[in-house]
């Protein structure tokens, strides 16, 4: 009886959660609200925000947040196939340079450059990454860390695509509202699309590849082909982010391959909780406004991302989103031991 611990916390799934996870019918409005509110709320918020913030400084922040959310979603998608990228800047930079180059040299209009950059850029990224697809774990991460640096140095040394100075005065978006809505819809599409995709049979195969490659292979599935597809999808999303920001800035330069575009999405995804995509989006929507508020810190912000990344990994490895999700779905009560 000396033990100081007299209680333990017991966690019980809510009944609705149990039913909705499985094959039962939902019967009441309460059930429906319970299930759909967490999905509708962020959706509605994202739709309304661009109008509410129209013209202001925070609309710009929303735009940045969407860009980084796209990168984080793309990271999370690759992570859910077991490919841990440390180089989202590769996707971002390729997308940015493709759209910038098409606009600058070929004078293509913006509604052509963005889709072309999305899919053409994805094709380029996929071709770059296919030779190293067989690498596992840390080795794959090393390559992805190195690749953006390599491309950035190539651009500088060869003097192509504007070299050190970058490509200036690209076409802007017709209006900032359009830009915001493009970014917002891209985020919504990716977020809900990816979540849906992962519960489909196709997504199960991808999850299987993350879990155990050998089993997937012995089940007759070509894992490299599926990994290639996953990289194409992820890099398309990353390239889209790059293309959007390029036209927003009306500039593309070597900074498109900078470490920022790797570390912030990574920090966001880890903070929010990897796996399930909602965490990645949530994390970046917390981090980006936060870092805007801390703009005065200047170069220290990157260090701050690092600290947040470490803190999130050590203190809350499951991530904010999964923590909230757990609390939402469970009763917790103290039980006497």
């Amino acid at each position, binding site marked *: 009886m000396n033990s100081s611990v007299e209680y333990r916390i017991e966690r019980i799934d809510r009944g609705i959660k149990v039913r909705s996870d499985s094959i039962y019918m939902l019967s009441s409005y309460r059930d429906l609200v319970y299930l759909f509110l967490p999905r509708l709320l962020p959706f509605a918020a994202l739709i309304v925000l661009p109008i509410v913030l129209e013209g202001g400084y925070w609309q710009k922040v929303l735009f940045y947040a969407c860009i980084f959310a796209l990168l984080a979603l793309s990271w999370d998608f690759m992570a859910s196939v077991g490919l841990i990228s440390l180089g989202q800047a590769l996707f971002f930079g390729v997308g940015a340079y493709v759209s910038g180059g098409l606009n600058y040299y070929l004078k293509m209009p913006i509604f052509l450059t963005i889709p072309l950059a999305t899919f053409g850029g994805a094709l380029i990224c996929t071709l770059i990454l296919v030779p190293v697809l067989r690498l596992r774990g840390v080795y794959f991460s090393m390559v992805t860390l190195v690749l953006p640096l390599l491309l950035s140095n190539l651009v500088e040394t060869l003097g192509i695509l504007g070299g050190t100075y970058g490509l200036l005065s690209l076409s802007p978006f017709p209006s900032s509202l359009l830009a915001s809505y493009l970014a917002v819809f891209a985020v919504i599409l990716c977020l809900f699309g990816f979540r849906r995709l992962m519960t489909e049979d196709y997504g199960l195969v991808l999850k299987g590849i993350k*879990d155990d490659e050998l089993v997937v292979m012995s089940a007759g*599935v070509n894992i490299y082909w599926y990994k290639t597809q996953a990289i194409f999808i992820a890099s398309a999303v990353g390239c889209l982010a790059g293309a959007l920001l390029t036209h927003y800035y009306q500039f593309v330069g070597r900074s498109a391959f900078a470490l920022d575009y790797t570390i912030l999405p990574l920090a966001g995804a880890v903070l929010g909780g990897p796996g399930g995509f909602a965490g990645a989006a949530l994390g970046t929507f917390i981090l980006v406004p936060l870092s805007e508020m801390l703009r005065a810190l200047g170069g220290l912000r990157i260090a701050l991302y690092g600290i947040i990344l470490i803190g999130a990994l050590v203190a809350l490895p499951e991530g904010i989103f999964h923590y909230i999700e757990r609390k939402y779905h469970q009763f917790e009560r103290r039980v006497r031991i």
Partner: protein
Amino acid sequence: MNNEVILKVENLTKHFGGVVAVDSVGFELRKGEFIGIIGPNGSGKTTLINLITGFVKPTSGKISYMGKDITGIAPYKIACLGITRSFQMARVFHKLPAYKNLIVPLYSPRVKALGGGKYGERDDMALDLLDEMGFERDSFVPYKLAENLPHGYLKRLDLARCLALRPQLLILDELFSGMTMAEVAATMPIIEKFNRDGLTIIMVEHRLKELFRVAPRIFVMNFGSKIADGTPQEAMKQEEVQKAYLGTEVEG
């Protein structure tokens, strides 16, 4: 019974560094056969399986399947040709519900080509197959996460994953290790039924009693080579086999 040769292995050899894991093994397998492979630990049984299923590339030798050379081609291609294997340590997707484990093989090009597994049907097919394996469909067992299932179920899940691919040659790597007697007794008839329906089976097993009851033909392996081939009674009579099992080394 059809007597066409389904698998032909010639002079198969695999070196790992200086160790000869499989030493010029050769055999022929006819359609519908049920053979057992036995041998002491480290005698190269699992390596032989890895070689046939393409997980390890042979140093030399040739494997042909239904008259087609499959030496050294990728494992998923071999699986799509209809050779599938279970793993010694049941390997399943731990984070998926048991029945979702079978979606992966049902999604493979092989099952698609055989006309199964259309959109929305795969869950049903998976549950049917698991029902056959003793995961009762109406209970909660098939819906549990695989990581929460006991060992015997995992082994059967692994077997179900193999069968979902509709194989023509099934290789079982110590399927019964770690199963209870009751589980073995429940699983054996399933395997025998598939064998009667024309499935060729290679079974690597340490449980000799159960194996001898079902397998009319036995290989014995020791130090990477095949030292006996015949009915269980014939095989066990050979002096070399008894030595390998009793461990009596001839001095000299």
